[in-house]
């Protein structure tokens, strides 16, 4: 806060501080009055603040309280299961995808000297083709909305005779999208490393596989850790899309509760608060990790690592629910 203020304003003097204080009070009063007329009054007029609607959610002595919270707990557990499965599998597949794309890229640069000319051309054509195919797949699945991917998985798999639980449709749909995103994050992390790292590894005799596994990948993970954690937030938010394939996650349970008790606003407020608390702590964790990492790099000799492309990062972050 202090940093962004200092870009635009000088440190306030006594007069400025007085003006700020007065305008704070004025703004506070205006905001409170506005909140009263725009939020409290409409809610109150429609009887949305009555204990009849809130009771089952906040009043432990209410007859429905324990049952409602049991259901919400179940839904939240299902949400967490789906999110955990999705994040683990997309991490694994995303890493493999990043490695595959890096390998294919280096393959397309190889000239295959020492082989028969037609064979060399064939191999070069093949690697170029494979590289193009993976590129197209990445672009397609990154450009499709996650909702649509999940929907396609849930509708399309049965057509080909693949029947799973709804949980697995959701996990597969989420994994397809997020593994592509994570793959791109890691790939740009590896490509952003200083070239000297790979050269030094080659100079001490590591094979290309060893170089990737022992030198490039750990560093890429380290740089990209904050981005990966914010991707976790995205996955957690996207699990709520399970409702379109009627997977029993938090929102779906919420819908069932509303069907019985008829209090949409109250139930959604509670669910929203649950999500906000969990996701906010995760984002704070990401910020903390980022600060730790920035502090950890103390040696002056470490070359500046290229930051990941802003587009990739913010798209991954803004892609929530997409």
């Amino acid at each position, binding site marked *: 806060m202090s940093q962004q203020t200092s870009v635009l304003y000088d440190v306030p003097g006594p007069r400025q501080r007085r003006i700020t204080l007065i305008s704070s009070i004025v703004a506070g009063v205006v905001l409170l009055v506005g909140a009263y007329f725009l939020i409290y009054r409409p809610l109150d007029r429609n009887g949305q603040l009555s204990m009849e609607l809130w009771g089952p959610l906040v009043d432990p002595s209410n007859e429905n309280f324990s049952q409602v919270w049991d259901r919400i707990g179940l839904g939240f557990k299902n949400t967490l299961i789906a999110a955990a499965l999705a994040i683990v599998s997309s991490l694994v597949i995303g890493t493999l995808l990043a490695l595959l794309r890096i390998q294919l890229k280096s393959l397309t640069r190889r000239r295959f000297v020492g082989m028969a000319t037609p064979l060399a051309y064939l191999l070069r054509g093949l690697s170029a083709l494979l590289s193009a195919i993976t590129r197209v797949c990445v672009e397609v699945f990154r450009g499709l909305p996650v909702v649509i991917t999940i929907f396609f998985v849930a509708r399309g798999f049965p057509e080909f005779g693949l029947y799973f639980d709804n949980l697995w449709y959701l996990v597969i749909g989420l994994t397809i999208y997020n593994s592509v995103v994570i793959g791109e994050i890691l790939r740009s992390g590896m490509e952003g490393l200083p070239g000297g790292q790979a050269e030094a590894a080659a100079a001490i005799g590591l094979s290309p596989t060893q170089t990737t596994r022992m030198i490039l990948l750990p560093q890429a993970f380290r740089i990209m850790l904050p981005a990966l954690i914010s991707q976790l937030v995205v996955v957690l938010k996207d699990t709520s899309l399970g409702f379109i394939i009627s997977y029993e996650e938090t929102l779906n349970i919420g819908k069932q509760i509303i069907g019985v008790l008829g209090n949409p606003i109250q139930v959604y407020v509670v669910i929203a608060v649950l999500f906000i608390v969990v996701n906010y702590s995760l984002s704070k964790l990401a910020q903390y990790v980022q600060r730790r990492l920035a502090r950890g790099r103390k040696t002056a000799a470490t070359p500046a690592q290229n930051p990941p492309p802003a587009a990739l990062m913010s*798209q991954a972050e803004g892609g929530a629910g997409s």
Partner: protein
Amino acid sequence: MNVLIDKFDVFAGGFWLTLQICILAAIGALILGAIVAVLRISPVPPLRAVGTSYVNVFRNMPLTVVMFFAAFGLPALGSNADFLRIPVIDSLFTRLGTDLPYFRFALIALVLYTAAFVCEALRSGVNAVPAGQAEAARSLGLTFGQNLRHVVLPQSWQASVVPLGSVIIAMIKNSALAGFFGVVGDLSATADQLTGAEGYAFVPVAIGISIGYLIMTVPLGALLDRIEKRQAVAR
């Protein structure tokens, strides 16, 4: 593959409706996001608190919850979102004026949700301007307004154009959710309708729908990549 040709008008209609949602939501989100960004960088603490809590709430909540709020909460309050029936605009975007409110509800949800990300993109742009720039401008005697107009905003705009673009791409993808909240006839609702009720083969429909979305997202992404590379060279 016949369904692609037979039902071309359905696909095209779905594409046009999705595009309408995206255009309207983008305009709304840019305006609201700019307002929230101004709040977040204002010198008055209560306003800053409002901006910050707005961003924290909407960034950490799934869009689905926002959509549910709009689709079930507003009717419970007796609102049909009729204030969005803006006379001239609703003749161009006909869905704004219909009696079924779901298009307007989806629009409200998308705008509220995306505005938080727009605000963060704009703010990161302002933060990217080195403090020395504004300090130098102040020491030259530029007023606050001049400082913003001639020094800070031109530079911050450059830094925020790529993140803003990514937010818009994400919003286009998010708009697919509208089809599952009662907006009849957009691309995702079309996919549901054709493969479900009308029983067409899955694969051609999936291809058609995918093309519809990729037409919007992929070129925009490529454009952003180009802009970002050019900026990286220029710096």
